[in-house]
């Protein structure tokens, strides 16, 4: 293999790609999507909808609703205004007691209609036996509606009201139960005061000084947002970098450019040059994504949470994945007769990115579970899933990234080798695309 030929092809493809309108558009849009999206989220968080939230309470016990209304008043007094600026920063919760009607279904339907008309944010139905203490294990199962509190709403996504209600409802129920037992809890309210729970990182010893480092505060961004974003960014760059290769090769083939190129460079040099060109494009766009990511975490005020130690891993995985997928794309593209054929195969090409996407939530829940570990050691999925696990606060055992990387590199090398054999045979074929059995035969026998 002559290096100058590979580099000449890589340089041409790189320049041709980065000068396209699609790439330049992506360059502008990607940071806006990532950075701007995060900033928008941050702004939304600081500028919530301040409209009053009306909640109807259908209290069949007659003993809990009052406690809820009192809790809402406390919350409104405490959280409604910023103490320094005196500007309203949270919506007011307004409870409305509803007397039970003779026909429960009609009443629930009428309340539902009020929610649909946006007159209510939600309504609660407190079962008539809700004060009867129940076995906690049984309570988690499907229970008798009379013993539970039902929360009706059409709110989607994250429902802050429901999250908040959990505390006041249970406090109200407990207070009512204690009153039923004759305990004067009103004079000892502090007994029910919640104890704050603070999430902290693990303690660690500084290898240089030998001193134990204090645990630091952790928040949900560290455990979820950062690793999730890092994995998504990697997957997007890999997909954006490798998918055009399929079209690129098919286009060169259908426009008869490839035969002229093969007059000057071997199929392996041609394919390697194209793969390197795509890798260069990916690294270029990754720099922008990374910059956008840094801007985003700065905007969110969590820059300190960025696990900088994984940046080298990010680039190693990025190059491994892009080379693997681009070689695969070159082989698939060589087998296609028209750009339409290539479009149909795009989903096959992107499988190593799509499968890890479906695994993200599973891995985030149990990053060191058996399934997460096994999937992250399967070479095509290693770059995205192992990086995701490495970016999580607990990290992974030290050997796993190295074993995963070794597997991914071997797999990438095997892909390049097999792809070059397929590419060599298929690139000049015209007419009907080859069958899978033929492609496999070319890969094995050349």
């Amino acid at each position, binding site marked *: 293999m*002559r290096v*100058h*030929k590979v580099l*000449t*092809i890589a340089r*041409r493809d790189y320049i*041709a790609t980065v000068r396209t309108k699609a790439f330049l558009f992506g360059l502008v849009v990607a940071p806006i999507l990532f950075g701007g999206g995060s900033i928008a989220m941050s702004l939304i968080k600081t500028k919530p909808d301040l409209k009053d939230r009306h909640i109807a309470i259908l209290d069949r016990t007659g003993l809990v609703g009052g406690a809820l209304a009192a809790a809402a008043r406390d919350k409104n007094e405490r959280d409604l205004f910023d103490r320094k600026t005196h500007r309203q920063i949270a919506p007011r919760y307004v409870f409305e007691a509803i007397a039970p009607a003779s026909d429960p279904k009609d009443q629930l339907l009428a309340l539902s209609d009020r929610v649909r008309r946006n007159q209510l944010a939600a309504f609660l139905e407190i079962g008539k036996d809700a004060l009867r203490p129940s076995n906690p294990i049984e309570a988690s199962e499907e229970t008798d509606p009379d013993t539970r509190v039902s929360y009706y709403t059409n709110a989607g996504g994250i429902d802050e009201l429901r999250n908040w209600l959990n505390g006041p409802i249970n406090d109200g129920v407990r207070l009512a139960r204690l009153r039923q037992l004759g305990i004067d809890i009103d004079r000892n309210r502090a007994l029910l005061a919640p104890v704050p729970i603070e999430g902290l990182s693990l303690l660690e010893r500084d290898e240089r000084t030998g001193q134990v480092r204090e645990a630091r505060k952790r928040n949900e961004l560290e455990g979820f947002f950062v690793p999730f974003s890092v994995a998504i960014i990697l997957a997007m760059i890999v997909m954006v970098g490798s998918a055009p290769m399929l079209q690129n090769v098919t286009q*060169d083939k259908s*426009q*008869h*450019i*490839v*035969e*002229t*190129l*093969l*007059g*000057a*460079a*071997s199929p392996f040099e041609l394919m390697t040059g194209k793969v390197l060109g795509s890798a260069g494009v990916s690294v270029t766009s990754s720099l922008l994504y990374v910059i956008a990511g840094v801007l985003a975490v700065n905007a969110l005020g969590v820059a300190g949470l960025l696990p900088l130690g994984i940046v080298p891993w990010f680039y190693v995985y990025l190059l491994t994945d892009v080379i693997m997928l681009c070689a695969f794309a070159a082989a698939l593209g060589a087998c296609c007769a028209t750009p339409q054929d290539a479009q149909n195969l795009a989903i096959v090409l992107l499988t190593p990115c799509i499968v890890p996407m479906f695994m993200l939530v599973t891995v985030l829940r149990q990053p060191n579970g058996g399934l997460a570990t096994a999937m992250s050691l399967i070479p095509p999925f290693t770059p995205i899933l192992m990086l995701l696990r490495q970016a999580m606060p607990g990290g992974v055992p030290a050997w796993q990234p190295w074993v995963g990387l070794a597997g991914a590199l071997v797999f990438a090398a095997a892909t390049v080798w097999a792809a070059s054999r397929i590419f060599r045979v298929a690139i*000049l074929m015209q007419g009907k695309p080859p069958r899978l059995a033929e492609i496999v035969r070319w890969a094995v026998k050349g």
Partner: protein
Amino acid sequence: MDAVEISHVTKTFASVTAVDDLSLTVPQGSIYGFIGPNGSGKTTTLRMIVNIFYPDRGEIRLFGDRRPETGRDFIGYLPEERGLYRKMTVQALLEFYGELRSGRGVEAEVASWLERLELAGRASDKIETLSKGMSQKVQFIAALIPEPKLLILDEPFSGLDPVSADAIRSAILDLRRRGVTVILSTHDMAVAETLCDYILMIFRGRKVLDGTLASIQDRYGEDTIRVTAPGGLSGVEHLPGVERVRDLGQVQELRLTRGADPQEVLRALVTQAPVTGFSLVRPSLHDIFLRIAGPAAEEANHASA
């Protein structure tokens, strides 16, 4: 040392044998013309010389070297299916191909060839803005930069107007004078007759003719009478000793059977039609081509099969 030595090369695609036990020697500094019907194996042979296809059997040596990979550095190749990056400028595209082959800058050579083929004014234009003829000339230049030792041209004149064709013919002859070996395929028998030092005819993957035009014609002897009959020969009945009559419009060619006497044919002819010209000639390459691959030959082959 010969530029190309092909020894018993066979290439098969699935059940089709595209090239069958082909042997050939191309002397350095010569122009070798490949002729043959469509699908006869010309392009496959050229692709094997360039090392785009690998022979299933046999061996190809370039300038005595068996290592095929090195060949690409000194071969200029113009494929039959033309294709250029449409979004690149003429200058950038030619520099790209030149650098790809040589690994060095080729600006001066690009400028020189653009000037010679009257494309200097279009150097900064994108390929997509060029006419078909201009694109063909650009692709021809791409095969010449840097100057190759071996130039392989698959149908170099197809689709060219006479002015462009003449410019390319002149360039080919100039390269030959500078010692470049040229192998070209063509369907134009006049090009093969007038431009090529040697002619190879491939038919159904096998070599059926190989040599200089004179040596090929010698194999057939002076078996053709070329006559000028102002009214044509359409009314002429059976002529003894004539195997086939070919009307070219202004002249007609009569192919004689083996041992036929041309004088007797002439005597029989003048009794049926006015004749103003008569000459005994060797068969043209076109005629030889048809004798091998024309419909009559096909019928004869079927009959004998």
